[in-house]
């Protein structure tokens, strides 16, 4: 459970996140929607430790984690993915996944030299797990390709794959759907659902694809101009006239069927 209270983050004179309060319930999938420039990504960055808030608090499972850096939050089980994927271009796709699990034995020089066997065993383990994730994401054929050579959409999948490798149980996904083919996106949604239902993962998803939000999210938080406009089920927020105006525009009535 993430509890955000009165979170504010400014850049010079621009108040990107303005006194935001919201809950991301454990074991649920929470959607975060709103117009471009509403501050959704900044809110993610502030929760996940990439920016320090100017004021306000973030609690993770009851513990105050306000202002902790991203790596510290990662070790507490919270991570985020990026809208524009950040892969290691010159490493293979499999290697990109294998570097994710923290605390690997081979990171210790002494262990690498004097205890090679457990290092190798763990490597084999992690490699096998990476292969499972690659299968899940239809990336097996590209396992040994240089990540820098992937298309934009394929990099998005690697980004999601790394989240799946992390062992983090609370994952903030920043536009997992943008640039992903609709057929594959439907499969991805299935994986997110399964991770949530069968393994109890908590997700918060920024997404503009309303089909995806309607399908996945128990609860949807709407942001506009740095503030939380409203929150509720997808149907509730979609019926809200202020949301219609700020976000859906005149096709709000058909947004569920509009594809992207």
């Amino acid at each position, binding site marked *: 459970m993430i509890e955000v209270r009165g979170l504010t983050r400014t850049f010079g004179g*621009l108040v990107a996140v303005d006194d935001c309060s919201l809950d991301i319930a454990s074991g649920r999938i929470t959607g975060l*929607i*709103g*117009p*471009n*420039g509403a501050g959704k990504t900044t809110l993610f960055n502030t929760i996940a430790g990439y920016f320090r808030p100017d004021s306000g608090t973030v609690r993770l499972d009851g513990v105050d984690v306000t202002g902790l850096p991203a790596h510290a939050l990662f070790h507490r089980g919270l991570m985020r993915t990026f*809208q*524009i994927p950040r892969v290691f271009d010159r490493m293979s796709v499999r290697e990109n996944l294998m570097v994710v699990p923290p605390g690997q034995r081979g990171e210790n020089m002494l262990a690498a030299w004097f205890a090679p066997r457990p290092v190798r065993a763990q490597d084999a383990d992690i490699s096998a797990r990476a292969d499972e994730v690659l299968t899940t994401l239809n990336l097996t054929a*590209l396992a040994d390709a240089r990540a820098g*050579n*992937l*298309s*934009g*959409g*394929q990099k*998005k*999948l690697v980004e999601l794959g790394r989240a799946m490798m992390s062992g983090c149980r609370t994952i903030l996904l920043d*536009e997992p759907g*943008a*640039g*992903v*083919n*609709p*057929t*594959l*996106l*439907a499969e991805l949604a299935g994986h997110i659902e399964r991770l949530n239902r069968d393994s109890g993962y908590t997700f918060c998803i920024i997404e*503009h694809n*309303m089909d995806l939000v309607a399908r996945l999210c128990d609860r949807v938080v709407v942001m506009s101009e740095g503030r939380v406009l409203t929150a509720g089920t997808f149907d509730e927020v979609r019926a809200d006239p202020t949301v219609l105006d*700020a*976000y*859906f*525009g*005149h*096709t*709000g009535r058909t*947004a569920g*069927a*509009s*594809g*992207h």
Partner: protein
Amino acid sequence: MSLLRATGIHAGYGGADILRGAELEVAANEIAVIVGPNGAGKSTLMKAVFGLAAVHEGSITFDGSAITNHAPDRLVRGGLSYVPQERNVFASLTVSENLDMGAFTRRDDTTADRERIFSIFPDLADKRRQPAGQLSGGQRQMVAIGRALMVRPRLLMLDEPTAGLSPKFVDQIFERIAAIRDEGVAVLMVEQNARRALHAADRGFVLVNGQTRFADTGDALLRNREVAEAFLGGAGP
């Protein structure tokens, strides 16, 4: 008669070719859309047309003349214009300056063109003196399209113009693209918002593994069960 025609294209960026026999055709006054799975080569096909990916086999003609492997600056002078997927505005320049950059190759007065862009995208008119980096995603995309229109192209190429945009902006972008087509500019775009894009399109291409698997009108592709199941996320409503 077709304005742009690409036949038997094999192209890539060094290393193995990404396109292996891609075909494409766009007539004047129409919107053509390329859809397909991730990594199929959609962006590469557009880049091959625009001289940003090396074409090793096949030919591309524009208005009847060969343009295969011509450099982008020459193609811009010839009437093609291209908006890449990311990093497509100068963030530190104002909206007006961005538009002026689009008219870099022109020597005549472009004031009227700038005003025309502001009439197509009224949102931008109020923000003409703001740095493009401060705009929201949807407005940036409008700046990028506006900049591409400043050379008065005959063919406008857009790589995923609606990726990452909120539903309201997606609607607006599709509307404006139709308006641009109606003004006589042919449009070629890559879109993952496939169902929506095919609705807007006069002509569609499904690219798979570097080859054009289906080519038909947008409506016919939407009705095609095989296309719908494999590439559009299931049968339509």
